[in-house]
Structure formats: C-alpha cells, structure tokens
C-alpha cells in the first residue's frame, strides 16, 4: 500500500511541474506589462528600467523560465510585492476561508445526494425518481452566481434572515463562541448556494450506481434468499454503490473551487476567489501560479484519496 502511495505521489511531481511551466508561459505571453503593476503607471524611464532589472524581467524568456522552474522545484513559488508576503503564505492564508464554504457544502451535498439517490433508486422510472432527478439536475444547471444573488435578495434582503455579505460582522468583531456563531450565520447562504450546485452529480451517480448494483446477481440471490428489502439496499448495495460516488466527488474538486470563486464574489467572502481575481488584474505571477499549483495539488490528492477509499470500501481491490 505504501509503495502504491509513494509511486502515485512521485508520478504527480512532473504533473505539477508541467502546470507551473504552463502558468509561467501564460502570464508571459499575455499582453500587459507586469512592471506597470509593480512600478506603478507613472515611473519614469530610468525607474522602470531599474525595476525591470531588479525583478529580472529584462532577461530573455528562456533564461527566466529556467530560473522560475528552479525556484519552483525548491518550493519557492515567488514573492508578491503587492501584498508584501510570499505567494504560498498569501494563498494558504486565504485557504481556510474558502474551505469554510467548500467543506460544509461538500458534506451536505454528499448527505443529501445519497438520500436523494436512494429515494430515486428504490423505484426507478417512477414519479419519485423523475422528480428527484429533475430537482437535482436543476440545481446543477442553475448558474451558481445567479442562485447566490437570488438567495441574497430573498433571504438577506427581503426576509432579513441572514447577513448580506462578508464572513463576520466587522462592527462587533466577536471572538470565541460568539465569533464562531457570527461566522456560522454568515456562512448559511453561500454554503446553501454551493450545496445546491454540488448536489446533482452526486445524486445522479448515487442513483445510477445503486440501480446498477441492485440489478446484480448477488443482490438477486440475496432477495431470493428472503432478505428484507432494507437490508438488501443498506448492507450490500450501498457499500458498492458508494465507489462511483466517491469518484465523482474526487473529480469535482476543480468544479467546487470555481463555484466558490463565484459565490465569494457575490457575498464578498474573503477567500481565494478574490485573491485570484485581483492577482490576475495586477499580473501578480506569484499568486496566480501558486493558486494553480494549489488547485492541481488538490486534484491529485483527492484522486489519491479516492483510490485509497476504494480499497477500503471494496475488499476485492488491492493495490501492490
């Protein structure tokens, strides 16, 4: 097992390097001078030349690429002058806020998704099934920012049930338990928007794999042996049906982050979304490439976790 993990991780390294290189090229080839962002628009020619030399931006492309990749290999993803901190610090510093949205949304959508999937699978092609499928499909088809704004208008504005924006009430600046409750109140609407978005693929895959599994021979045998319906679903079917669900969740990581970016914009939630957008406008290569790498790492890690979960769930699967 350990050898498997080690091998997979080592396979990830060239992948990450390729992503880093791609990011570098993208920013390089894009119009818009990073010096403008760094030196301000109004530096005179001498100052701009000095800045260019200082940041090594006067070197040829090839040389800069090599230097950049070398630093990435050493774990140095660059320094953001705009924010006066290393890129990794900046990104990791904002990560918890985004995870505060994605984490609960993931848990809730998995829970609801499984429930809906079971409901639909119990009687396939029935009214319940169609209703459940349609509802979860709708959730996926609605643009998440549209939904977010709708929730904002209805629940925060009209009904005044929840706050309009932000992660906490800056006026009160509550600490401890009160602070946690404050954050929780602010989380409700954005997490709802994200949950609705993530629900559909999970519900759909749960339903499909449950139906598949329930059509299998061993299930028929179990039923023939006289086992209760609930036992059939619960004990045998669900466990095996979970495998594709877990895969779907793992594959959704990129999708989840994009949903978070859009939701964060609507609710002014201080997470990675805003960081990326302002970094792009400022041509802050360090931040943009760090975020890309972070996301790639997240995808690779989640795929690995998925594979490990597979082994845990299905005793037939063993990795060498």
């Amino acid at each position: 097992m350990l050898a498997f993990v080690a091998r997979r991780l080592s396979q990830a390294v060239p992948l990450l390097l390729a992503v880093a290189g791609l990011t570098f090229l993208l920013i390089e080839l894009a119009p818009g001078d990073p010096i403008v962002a760094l030196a301000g628009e109004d530096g005179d020619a001498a100052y701009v030349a000095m800045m260019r030399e200082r940041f090594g931006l006067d070197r040829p492309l090839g040389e800069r690429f090599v230097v950049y990749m070398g630093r990435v290999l050493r774990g140095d993803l660059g320094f953001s002058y705009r924010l006066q901190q290393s890129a990794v610090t900046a990104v990791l510093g904002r990560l918890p806020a985004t995870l505060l949205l994605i984490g609960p949304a993931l848990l809730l959508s998995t829970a609801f998704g499984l429930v809906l999937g079971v409901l639909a699978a119990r009687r396939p092609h029935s009214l319940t099934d169609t209703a459940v499928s349609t509802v979860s499909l709708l959730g996926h088809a609605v643009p998440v920012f549209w939904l977010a704004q709708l929730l904002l208008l209805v629940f925060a504005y009209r009904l005044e049930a929840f706050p309009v924006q932000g992660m906490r009430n800056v006026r009160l600046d509550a600490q401890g338990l009160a602070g946690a409750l404050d954050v929780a109140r602010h989380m409700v609407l954005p997490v709802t928007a994200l949950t609705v978005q993530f629900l559909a693929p999970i519900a759909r895959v749960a339903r499909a794999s449950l139906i598949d599994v329930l059509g299998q021979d061993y299930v028929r045998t179990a039923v023939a042996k006289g086992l209760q319906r609930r036992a059939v679903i619960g004990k045998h079917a669900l466990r095996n049906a979970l495998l594709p669900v877990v895969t779907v969740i793992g594959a959704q990581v990129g999708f989840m982050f994009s949903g978070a970016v859009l939701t964060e914009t609507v609710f002014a939630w201080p997470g990675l979304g805003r960081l990326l957008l302002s970094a792009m406008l400022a041509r802050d290569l360090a931040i943009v490439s760090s975020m890309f790498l972070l996301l790639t790492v997240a995808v690779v890690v989640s795929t690995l976790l998925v594979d490990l979960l597979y082994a845990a769930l299905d005793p037939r699967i063993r990795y060498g």
Partner: protein
Amino acid sequence: MAERWLAVRGWAPRRRSAPSPSLLVGGALTCGFVLLALLGESLAPGDPFAAAATPFAPPSAAHPFGTDDLGRDLLRAVLQGARVSLIVGLTVAATSLTLGLLVGGVAGYLGGAADDLLMRFTELVLVLPRFFLALVVVALFGANLANLIVVLALTSWGIVARVARAGVLAAKEQEYVLAARALGSAGPSVLWRHVLPNVLAPVAAYAALQVGNAILVEASLSFLGFGDPNLVSWGYLLNNAQAFVRRAWWLSVFPGVAIVLAVVAINLLADGMRGRRPANGG
C-alpha cells in the same frame, strides 16, 4: 418470484430496446433549443443591439420578454444568445470528441510506452482547473469568444480520451476481434468497426455534457466581467441585468431560465445516451 419482485421495481436488467424517458425528454428539449437557435433570426429579426422601444418596458404583447436599459428587445437578445451558446457548445463538443477519440483510440490501440505517454498527457489536461484557466486566459488575452472556445476545446477532451481508450482495450480482448486478427484481417479498421458502436454512446454523452458546461462557463465569465461585449450571449445578458435586478426583474429571469432549460435539456439527453449501454449483468 424474486425476479418478478426485482423487475417490478425496475432493478432487473433493462431490455436494450427501451429508450429511457430521459433520452426522449432531453432529446426533445434539445431539438427545440437547437431549432430556436437556428430560426431565431426569422422569429425575431433585427439587430439585438439596436433600440426597439422605450427602456425598461416590462413584458408585454409587443415585447414578450420586455426591454433592457438601452431599449433593446430581450426576446430577440435571448434567441441570439441561444445561437451563441450553440456555437460555443458545439465547437467545444466537436473538438473534444475528435481529440478525445484520437488520443484515446491511438493510446488503446498502440499500448505500451505510447499508451503510457499519451495517458500521462491526458492526465495533465484532466488535472488542469478548467474554469480558472479560462478565466486567466480571457482576463489576460482579451475577453472575446474565440479565446474562450479555444481554451475550453483544448481542455475538455480528457474524459473522452479515457472512455475511448477503455473501449478500445475492451474490444481488443473480445473473441471475435482476436479471431479476426488471427485470420489476418486488417488491424485498426476491424477494431474501429467493433469499438465505435460501443464507445460512441458514452463518448457522445460526455461530449454533450461539455456543451452544457461551456454555456455555464461563458455565463460565469461574463458575470465576473470578462465576457465578450460584441456578442449577445446569455452570460452577457445576465451580467447586464445585475445593475437593474430590483428595477427590472425580467432582465435576470428570462436569460437565467433559458440557461437552466438548455443545460437541463442537454444533461437529460446525455443521461439518456449513457443509459443505452448494454445492461450490466456482471
């Protein structure tokens, strides 16, 4: 007895010939959407950017979807938007279908080191955060549809490649293929003749899903301010509606509903297509 119980509940393997409701509904809706997009010009002719009436006119007989802040007819705009969405979606789907089949098929057929290399490359493409890449490209290289299509097309073929490869690998093991090869029939064409029918359905389903995804990505980019201002797209309409969300509800509702219906239709269709594979008997 058990068989009947299972069959009644629909858990028994479905007969191959019964099309699922998803396929029918999805197919119908999608056809409707395509028709509207193609016929949009004649149904509500004119330049969608030209002023048609007074600004902020609510839905009425003359303007079923109302008008926006510059007096432009929303129905006309939504129909034009359908066309833009269709173009983007189809281009992306076609490209990912072609690239995916090519890469996956070749990898599966050749096997060995070539397979390994191609699959590694596919993994890279799969791992790239697609939305963020589109965002960065559009923000840095210019907010126009061409950039968006290129980015999406180049990053959406990964899954298709995987499925295609799996199909080829499975077919290689089939008895009749082995027999054919033993008899000396030509390699690739035999494979494709047997592989394609099996692979086409799920591959087409995934490609169809890209259309829906492309529509949502375009809308999201427009929301963030990176949409193409020279084309009427649904995302452009939603973005425009934001400033007037409390004054003119119809500006947000109709384009939003259009997006939802189109994506639902496509997803249903894709679901139905996927459901047509041989029943899973073990």
